[in-house]
Every structure is written in C-alpha cells, then in structure tokens.
C-alpha cells in the first residue's frame, strides 16, 4: 500500500487535502468458511446418500463460486480529496469528501470523524462516494482537526475487501470571534504626529488650544483676523489660533497561551479540543482579536506577542495589513510544550498600553504585567478564566478550587493595587467586556 499527500495545519480554508492509495484486495474469510461448510455438507450428503444435504450445500457453494467469478482483477487506486470551507456566521464549516474508486469496486465503507470527536460511518456505492458533504459545528478557535476520513473498499458484494485505509486529515486554523468595542482605554502618553486622538502637544489637526501672538514658524492660514482686529495694539500685531496635535495610541497585546482550561475543573487535566464548551484560550483569542480589531479600526497601532513562546514580537503597526498580520498570529496561538519562564519582560515601545490576556492561574503573566506597569506603561489585565461551578465537585476538589481561586484573586487584587486595570472577559454578573473597557476608557490616570 502506498500513500501520498497530507493535510497540513494552518492551511487556507479552501485548500484541498488529498491522499491516494493503492491497497490490495483481501478475501473475506466468509468465503473460506462457506467453501468448507458447503463442501462438507455436500460430501456428507454424498457419503450418506442424503440428497437434501447436497441441496442445502448447493446455494452456499454457488454463492461462493459467483463471488469468485466477480473477483476484482486489478489493484485498486483510490483518490480521496477533502475540501473544508470557512467558518460561517452560524459557527459551522462545510466539508466535501470525494472518492475516485476503481471500476471493479461495488462500494465503500467510510468512517468520518468531526473535530476528532464525532464519528459517523456510512456504506455507500461508488457514485455516492464521489460527493459526501456536510457541516461541522465549530466550538473552539485556533489550530484544530476539522474532519478525518478512514475507508474500506468493497467488491463482489463484500466478498473482497481492502484493509481500512487512512484518508486525509483536514486541519485548519479557525479564526476567533470578535466583539465590537467602541471605547477603549488609551495610553498615558500619546505618540506620533498623526492619529485619531488628541495629544497634549501643540500642533495640527486636534482641538482648539489657545490664541497666541504670531511667532516665526506659525502658518499664515492660522492667523485669526477677527481676534487680530480686536486685540492688535500696534501695526504688525497678528494673532493665531493654536490647536493640539493629534496622536495615535500604541497597544501591545500579550496573550498568555500556556493555560487552556475549560469551565469544569474536572476537565482541566484533559484535552480541551474535544469539549463542547469554549475554553479559556478560546476566550483569550476572542479578546485579543476584538481588542486588536478595535484599535486598528480607530487608527491606532497594534503589536502582538504570545507570552508562552520566546518568539519575536509582532512590532506595532497600523492599518488593515497589520490587522491581517496580527489576527492570524492570534488565531494560531496554542499551548506548546513546557511553560516558558522569562527573566525579564519583553521590551515594548515607550508610551504603549499593554493588554495582558491570561487566566492568571500562576504568577508568570501577573509578574510580567507588574514589570510593565512599574516601567510606566498603562497595563490592562484581561482575565479569561471561565467562572467554574463547584456544586458537583467532591469536597476535596472544592477545597482545591477554593485555594486556587483565592490565590488568583490575591494576584488580581495585587495588580489592581498597582494601578493595573482588571477586566473579566467572561463576567459572572453579566457585565460585558465592552462596558468594563468603557469605564476604564473614561479614567485617564497619569503614571504613578
């Protein structure tokens, strides 16, 4: 048997995952049992002069001979292709599986796996096998297996089979969902000479600042003639209207992808990809994508780094191209290997606002947030842990959860006391992240 082609992770949504195989036909064991029983009955019938035994054996032997007569003559060559669509608004992706089967096969037994969890088997004829299609519900964002196919060919009414063969495994990176965020906190210091926000420096494009006497360097079109007429005391006195400069904000999104935990504490040790509920990393990706999209849309600059890896930071930038750079990087985040402990916080541009998106189940991301805050940056800690119900837990488990929750709460309180804004993305009391961010957007504390 030979196989070629494979599905890679992170492929384009409309990419074709294909495999081909040349399996060997295997005789169904039932044929051998049929020959033994048929010949045995017929032989005993002849020996004992019992025609009815020969009559009972005859259909079995004829069925065996007929199956042998229809034995496939050539080695089968099977081509399998899987097309996976994009995530729709209803959180589904479509898939199409197509088999090109040899002429002497009757049908095919196909085993389909959705998201590595749901399994469905069908036995279909050759014509139907050319177009098998359906939709798969998507629960998680990020890199994941969408659909996998195993199959087995049938010939001569199942008298000849192939061994079960692995087909394509279609892995895709599913984009996170974004929510609209209208008002966002801004950094303590604005940078740049252009942007959507007012800065404290005099310049062009911003709101009215004051009226001042004309000085070298002022533009002529800034002269306010009405004020000049009113205030000028000597010939040559000119007055200009001065405005604030505009500036843009720089937001750094630091996503901690080390933890990927579900709602139920009992599932914290198991793989989360097969769960039917979103996990903390899904929430984190959604939060990071929403924040990045909102800042870019308001004309600001956004950078991104996965705190769980030692890879390079995506340098802050603005515009749609930067958004198309940042969103795939956010979507690709996944827990990788052993957790990384950094000796120092990654260097970030001066005057940036830093979003630390984490479950804060350990000290690492909280330590990073503290370091950035101490360096004078505005820091927003986005808590992505899903509130964990404890009602159905055993007393020991409940006690463990309580200890972990208290430690986490202490960590978040310490961040708050340092002047770090804390946002709960999945709040138990129904306060949306947008309203929490709006509250913090109104507060513009200077550096402490």
């Amino acid at each position, binding site marked *: 048997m030979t196989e070629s082609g494979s599905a890679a992770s992170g492929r384009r949504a409309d990419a074709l995952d294909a495999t081909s195989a040349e399996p*060997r036909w295997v*005789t*169904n*064991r*039932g*044929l051998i*049992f*049929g*020959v033994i*029983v048929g*010949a045995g*009955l*017929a*032989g005993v019938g*002849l*020996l004992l*002069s019992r*025609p*009815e*035994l*020969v*009559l*009972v054996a*005859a*259909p*079995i*032997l*004829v*069925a*065996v*001979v*007929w199956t*042998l007569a229809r*034995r496939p003559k050539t080695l089968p060559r099977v081509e399998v292709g899987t097309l996976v669509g994009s995530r729709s608004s*209803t*959180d*589904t992706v479509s898939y199409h599986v197509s088999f090109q089967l040899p002429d002497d096969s009757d*049908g095919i*037994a196909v*085993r*389909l796996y*959705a998201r590595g969890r749901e399994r*469905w*088997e*069908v*036995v*279909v*004829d050759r014509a*139907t096998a050319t177009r*098998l*299609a*359906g*939709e*798969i*519900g998507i629960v998680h964002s990020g890199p994941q297996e969408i659909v996998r196919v195993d199959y087995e060919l*049938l010939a001569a*009414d*199942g008298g000849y*089979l192939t061994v079960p063969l692995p087909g394509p495994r279609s892995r895709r990176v599913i984009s996170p969902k974004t929510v609209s965020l209208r008002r966002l906190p801004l950094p303590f210091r604005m940078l740049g000479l252009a942007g959507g926000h007012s800065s404290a420096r005099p310049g062009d494009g911003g709101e009215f600042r004051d009226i001042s006497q004309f000085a070298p360097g002022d533009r002529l079109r800034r002269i306010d003639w009405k004020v000049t007429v009113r205030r000028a005391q000597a010939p040559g006195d000119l007055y200009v209207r001065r405005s604030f400069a505009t500036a843009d904000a720089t937001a750094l999104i630091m996503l901690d992808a080390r933890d990927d935990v579900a709602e139920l504490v009992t599932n914290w040790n198991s793989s989360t990809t097969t769960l*039917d509920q979103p996990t903390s990393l899904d929430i984190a990706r959604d939060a990071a994508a929403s924040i990045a999209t909102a800042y870019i849309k308001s004309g600001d600059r956004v950078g991104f780094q996965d705190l769980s890896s030692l890879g390079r930071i995506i340098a802050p930038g603005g515009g749609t191209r930067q958004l198309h750079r940042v969103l795939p990087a956010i979507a690709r985040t996944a827990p990788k290997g052993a957790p990384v402990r950094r000796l120092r916080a990654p260097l970030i541009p001066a005057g940036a606002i830093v979003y630390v998106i984490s479950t804060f189940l350990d000290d690492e991301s909280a330590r990073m947030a503290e370091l950035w805050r101490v360096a004078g940056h505005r820091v927003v800690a986005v808590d992505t842990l899903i509130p964990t119900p404890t009602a159905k837990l055993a007393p020991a488990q409940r006690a463990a959860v309580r200890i972990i929750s208290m430690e986490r709460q202490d960590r978040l309180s310490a961040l708050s006391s340092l002047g770090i804004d804390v946002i709960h993305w999945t709040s138990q009391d129904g306060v949306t992240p947008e309203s929490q961010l709006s509250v913090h957007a109104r507060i513009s504390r200077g550096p402490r």
Partner: protein
Amino acid sequence: MTKTELGEVNRRFRPAIGRSVPVSIVRLGIAVVLLTLCFGIIGFNLYLPFGLLLAVMTLAFPKTPAAWGLAILLVALTLGSYNAAPTWQFFVVLAGAHALHQFGMMLAWLPVSGRIQLRILGRMLRSYLIIQIPAQLISLVVLTLLSGTSVVATLTSPLFGVVAGVGLLLLVILVLVPILRAGADEPE
C-alpha cells in the same frame, strides 16, 4: 453555540447519502432472523442454548465462523432423521443456511453504527434471491421425485454416488485453489 444548537449541527455533520437505513436496523433484522431460525428450527430443547450462543457470537464476533456453525447445527437438527419428503423445515433451513452464509460475509465489513445505502443492501438481496429461488424450486422438484412414491426414486445406482463424489471433489479444488492462492498473495 448552545448544546441544542451543537446537537443540531452534529446531525448536519452526517452526509446525505440518499435512501438509506441505520446499520442498527440491519443488525436488528439479522438478529431477528437468527432468533427465528433458532426458535423455529431448533425449538425448545437442549440444543437451543447452543444455537443462541452461536447466534450471539455471529453478531458480536463477526470474524469467527459462528454463522456457519449455526448453519451446520440447523442442518444437523432438521435433516438428522431421513425423510426425503419435502417439509417446510427443509425449505426454511435451505434459505436459512444460505442467509447465514451471506450474513457471515456481510458482518465482516458492516460498521457498528451509521447508515448503509439501500442500494448496497438491495444488490446483496438480489444476489441472494437469484441463487435462492432456483435452489428452492430445484429442491422441491428433486425431493418430490426422490420421495418414496416416485418412479425416479427407483433409478438409483452406486455409480451415481461415485460420479457425484468426483464432481464435488473437482468443484472444491476449483473453488479452494484460487482462494488459497489469493490468500498467499495478501500481505500480513
């Protein structure tokens, strides 16, 4: 996505394959046939538990020759005492033994769950009927002719047995050799 919505989407994951039946219904049908054969042919006697055991093994362990074992048991119990006159049990066993051979072959590849296209089942049923209907008719004719009152019953000779035996041996060689040769070619 709520659990209800997810359940609905999970159903849409299953590809549309036209007219089909759940595999569980097919397995249930096979179980009904096996039980009918056991209770109808074996009856309530000491062999019934053995027959039921073979029926269960046919369904639970399809790679074992349990189906053919059950066929032998049914044949042995029905045709144990000599009676050339056609009875309904003989015709049921004739159909049943052939069906057990087909079931045994089919259960080797039938999935545990999912759906099977009616076209696939129809093709298998057609093959079964093409062989079984002539077999029933020929059996009826042969057994009628061989029954005590027929003239044909007197036309017996030991020579016929020798000829038939040689013919059967040739048939077995013709059938087994290609199977064994194909088996030797298959990879481990």
